[in-house]
């Protein structure tokens, strides 16, 4: 066990009962919940905060993602938001003093047809204009960046070109959660694990006034739901209708590949992405399952189709074996953009719609939501409020689902 984990275990985790009232109660102690608590306490001095989790911290989607950090999205509002998050990740080790194993790798987003090559060219130009450094590169440059790639795509998916996102990175998901948990605890935030919330208490005017847990009812000035897939159930207690459908997203790692695999490789047409973990394992993922489900189960047909796509482009993967697979249940919004901020019910805030793009947004979403709660203004997330649907302004982002 390393030093960081030992320090973490020495922290005074709350084992007793929570206080009867807090200024802010956050449901869900994953990356988003803990980051929000961390920034509320460190940036805005709101330390009377409690974070509750049904299981251990980071046990939901924070522990079930593919740890990719990138900002090459499809609409300017998203690019600016995710670029801010990407830059915060680059500074996170300095800020929290915890090693999160951040590694800038560069992301190659391949196009296998003239049509998608145009999409990637557009993406490169639009992203660069919004501050996310992205270039369109040809097959020779792609081969130089990733020698393992079969540039002919087995004859079926030739690589026409790619948009190269220079600052694409990965970080260790657990460590990000721990870094925020540690920072929040040191700042005086209370974190209670294994404390499932079973309902919300409501005032006479309908306002959400607290949460119901096995450790008793906890009153709250504001309740924030930072819940992953089960967010519709939680919002239902507050009579809030959400444009969210919960889909499973599967991913897997192979056994270790002895060579260095430098970049993150993804494909626009085939829809899959490959990167190498610090342990040498090849991490492979693709798009979310077509049907809505809360079951965190891996299907053989997914492993088969995803492996087939990955082996087509990276033939060396055929010699590796699937070591481990996992499934997260993603809260996917109707317009493929996150939903952050107050809801139609007073005292109830949400951070949801994180679908397949939540990990990369943890720092910025936490910071901006904390800022919105403390000061009433957060320009970066202003376009992503729940009220946008009633105003018929969809933030339709075609670049956020899976890798599409």
């Amino acid at each position, binding site marked *: 066990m390393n030093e960081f984990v030992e320090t973490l275990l020495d922290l005074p985790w709350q084992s007793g009962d929570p206080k009867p009232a807090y200024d802010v109660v956050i449901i869900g102690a994953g990356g988003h919940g803990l980051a929000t608590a961390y920034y509320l306490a460190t940036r805005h001095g709101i330390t009377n905060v409690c974070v509750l989790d049904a299981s251990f911290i980071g046990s939901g989607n924070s522990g079930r993602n593919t740890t990719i950090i990138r900002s090459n999205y499809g609409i300017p509002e998203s690019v600016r938001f995710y670029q801010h998050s990407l830059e915060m990740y680059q500074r996170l080790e300095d800020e929290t003093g915890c090693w999160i194993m951040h590694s800038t790798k560069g992301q190659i987003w391949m196009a296998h047809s003239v049509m998608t090559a145009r999409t990637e060219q557009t993406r490169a130009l639009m992203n660069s204009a919004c501050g996310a450094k992205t270039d369109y590169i040809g097959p020779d440059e792609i081969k130089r960046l990733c020698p393992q790639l079969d540039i002919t795509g087995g004859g079926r998916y030739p690589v026409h070109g790619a948009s190269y996102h220079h600052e694409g990175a990965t970080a260790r998901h657990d460590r990000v959660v721990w870094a925020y948990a540690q920072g929040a605890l040191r700042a005086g935030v209370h974190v209670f694990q294994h404390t499932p919330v079973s309902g919300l208490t409501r005032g006479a005017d309908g306002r959400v006034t607290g949460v119901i847990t096995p450790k008793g009812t906890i009153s709250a000035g504001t309740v924030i739901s930072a819940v992953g897939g*089960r967010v*519709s*159930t939680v919002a239902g207690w507050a*009579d809030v*209708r*959400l*444009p*969210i*459908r*919960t889909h499973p997203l599967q991913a897997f790692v192979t056994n270790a590949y002895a060579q260095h695999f430098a970049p993150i490789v993804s494909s626009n047409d085939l829809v899959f992405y490959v990167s190498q973990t610090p342990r040498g394992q090849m991490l492979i993922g693709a798009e979310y399952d*077509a*049907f*809505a*489900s*809360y*079951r965190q*189960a891996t*299907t*053989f*047909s997914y492993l088969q189709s995803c492996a087939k796509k990955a082996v087509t482009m990276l033939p060396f993967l055929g010699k590796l074996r699937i070591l481990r697979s996992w499934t997260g249940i993603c809260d996917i919004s*109707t*317009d493929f953009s996150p939903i952050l901020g107050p809801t139609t019910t007073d005292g109830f805030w949400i951070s949801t719609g994180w679908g397949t793009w939540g990990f990369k947004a943890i720092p910025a979403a936490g910071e901006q939501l904390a800022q919105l709660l403390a000061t009433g203004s957060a320009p970066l997330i202003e376009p992503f409020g729940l009220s946008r*649907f*009633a105003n*018929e302004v*969809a933030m339709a982002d075609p670049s956020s689902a899976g890798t599409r």
Partner: protein
Amino acid sequence: MLWVNCPNCGKRPFEEFRYGNVFPTTPESITDPDARNVDFAWMQDNIEGEILERWFHESGCRRWHTARRNTTTDAWLPVDD
């Protein structure tokens, strides 16, 4: 493996099917016509439990059918119609 009960072909692997989505509903409690339109266009029930939904047997009888499924277990249940 997941199995779908097709009313024409019996129990078949779900890879043969295409998902046709749930039946959209709007709660009666929303009475304002504009708000009902917004709800119909964007909002989802996203039920954690039993739902009614459509499936298309793409690689089989090529017919649509209505299925009842528990979203927490992915168990297909009898449809009473």
